[in-house]
């Protein structure tokens, strides 16, 4: 193997960029989290208040309910995306007429900005004038009202997210699947393994790092979703879709509650890291070592 110096040299630009644009702002946010600061309070200065923000957080009903719905949203959205994405990626591995066109169509949702996605889905689901509630009512007599029903709004945000981001999972999994060396599969076929055995014993272990990397990305992106939901429901009805990203946005943008908003962000970041770290240590790191 070549000298490690070259390795560090190749890694250095990444570390430098992430330090200046990731770590430095993060340190500022951590610092702010221990302060009280609202520029439109009677005292508009930045006042040190120890762990007060964090103490408040633990009893903050709005934060806790936001955390709850965010976790539920993330779970349903990401699980659906990964299963669907895998099925579609596998389906793309075969040859069929018009494959290139279908694949392009399938990636189209990705190229739409979240605020647009939120807008379209809002117009498609507004009670009485949206096309989806209209046909649900006409065909099934079901009244879909995302302005009143918490469940309806929650479900629509999940469906919207699945529509928007499943292609990302499909694409990364296609990349992983096409890079698989064919030898083990040929060998397995020679040994007379059936499809299910091949899937569980060969395909899945070989692409699980890619699946996990994708799950990670989707997980953390879903946990901080803002734009789509803000456009679709504004966090409503009530606080049914006030996911953490939206909650933090409302805390720091209109409410200019910078200190407290920073504390919420630090906690959210911490929770995300812990969840991901557990997944990582348990599932990805050992594989990387083996490899």
């Amino acid at each position, binding site marked *: 193997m070549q000298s490690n110096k070259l390795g560090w040299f190749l890694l250095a630009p990444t570390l430098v960029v992430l330090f200046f644009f990731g770590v430095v702002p993060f340190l500022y946010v951590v610092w702010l989290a221990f302060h009280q600061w*609202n*520029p*439109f*309070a*009677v*005292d*508009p200065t930045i006042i040190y208040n120890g762990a007060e923000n964090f103490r408040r957080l633990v009893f903050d009903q*709005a934060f806790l309910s936001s955390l709850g719905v965010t976790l539920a949203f993330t779970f349903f959205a990401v699980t659906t995306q990964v299963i669907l994405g895998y099925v579609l990626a596998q389906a793309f591995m075969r040859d069929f007429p018009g494959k290139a066109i279908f694949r392009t169509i399938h990636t189209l949702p990705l190229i739409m900005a979240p605020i647009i996605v939120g807008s379209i889905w*809002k117009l498609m689901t*507004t*009670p*009485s*004038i949206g096309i989806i509630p209209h046909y649900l009512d006409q065909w099934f007599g079901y009244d879909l*009202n*995302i*302005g*009143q029903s*918490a469940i309806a709004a929650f479900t629509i945000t999940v469906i919207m997210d699945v529509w928007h981001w499943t292609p990302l999972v499909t694409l990364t999994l296609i990349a992983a699947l096409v890079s698989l060396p064919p030898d083990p599969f040929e060998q397995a076929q020679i040994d007379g393994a059936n499809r299910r055995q091949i899937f569980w014993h060969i395909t899945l272990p070989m692409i699980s790092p890619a699946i996990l990397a994708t799950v990670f990305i989707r997980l953390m992106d879903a946990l901080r979703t803002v734009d789509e939901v803000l456009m679709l*429901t*504004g*966090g*409503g*009805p*009530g*606080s*049914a*879709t*006030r996911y953490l990203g939206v909650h933090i946005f*409302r*805390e720091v*943008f*209109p*409410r*200019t*509650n910078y200190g407290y908003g920073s504390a919420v962000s630090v906690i959210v970041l911490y929770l995300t890291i812990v969840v991901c770290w557990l997944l990582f240590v348990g599932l990805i790191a050992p594989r990387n070592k083996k490899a």
Partner: protein
Amino acid sequence: MTISLKAGASALALALAAQGAFAQDIQIENADWWQEAGAKFDGVTIRGVTESTPPSNFVTDVIAPKFEELTGIRVEIETTSWDQMYDKAIKDMEAGTGIYDVVYIEQDIVYSYLSRDFLVDMTAALEENSDLQAPGYSEDNFTTFADYFRGENGDLFGVPMEAFIKIYLYRTDLFDDEEIRAAFQEQTGRELEPAKTHEEYAEIAEFFTQYFQEQGEDIWGTTAQAHTGHPASWYEYVESILPTFGVYNWGINADEDYAATVEHGGEMNSDTAKEALTWWLSMRDIAPPESVQSTWTEVATTFAAGRAAQGLVYGENAAWIASDENQSRVVGNVGVALPPVEDGVMEEIEAGNGYIGYYDGGAFGIPVSSNNHEAALLFAQFLALPDLQEEWALAAPRITLTSTYDSERVQQLDEDLGGYFSMMRDDGALFQGAPPYPFHAQVREAVAPIFYSILTGSTGVDEGLDQMAERAEQELTNLGYRTN
């Protein structure tokens, strides 16, 4: 603003441009003075931030180029969304970066900015630099709306650029329909006329919703700006519903240590407030189903689509609803009236002890952090020149100078709009700027989640308003405005 007005305005722009008459068409008196005044600021660029509304677009498309042409001072206007605009202006002024020389301020956030001394005192600055005092500009020209941009010393901190009132629109074709009138008479025993009181309004609303339901038509008796996750619903409640029941300033009592609960001397959870909210919710329930997702524009569009017989609609939308054939299905059928009130409230308002709604709008202010105060002062005065106002009022239905009402073309438009401008002129005093609180967004965001949950029905009105009043006091204590 809606697609409609924008499209309408730009269609107009294209038509006018084709005749070779737009920015060039506006004649400014004392052009020499502007040329000379601008000469001092050679190479200076003024940067501003605003929302992309029709009045602002007129500034970007017409006024700024005209100003550049005369003075040689370049003007760059950044247009962005509502949340972003405030966030960016606040970040800039708080950090003292000096990015912006002109910022858009609404009649509520101005008090936040004033409390932080973010804005330049224009009156004082012009007195100090009398050579910058433009001929044709005078503070006396403004309508009463300018009073909501004055500091405690009475000085002006922003030049008004748009002003609107939220009015009661009704469909004249329906109200004049013989068959409908007869049916209404039979059902209620009185003539069908625009409502003066909440009781009458509710009666009409219920009648229409029921009447058209029986006919199988998509017309309802009222509108409701009742989004269950957007501040628009909060604003309809505090600026148009509460005051007409006689509860002002959000039910927060500034004289009683900013109390919100009845217990401490506030009114946010008073019986009247509860009655008001209950009434509004009952109206919401017979409004078109999309109301639970409606913010300001959607209400206007609902009305324009002919889905409501009457409703409260922001004045900036009245123009295209009443006159733009491309955008509205009710052109020529729009009547304008004052919002209905509770018995006795009108007397209170006329005596000057209350208001019937917000006098909405915005102004341009100059941040203290700007490095080009003087050039920005020139631009600010330019915006208030009488010579520009007629075209501006025609492009976007806003009036900020009293003289604009006298223009013949504006009066012509007023007729098309069912008398909206005359109402603003004659009854504008019944409306009032937002309460002078420096904490609008803060308290609103603190109580809004509870308010939304009342709208969805998961919290009761009484219980919800009690919680809101408590939450408001808590937030005011946190911010330091309330001492206990």
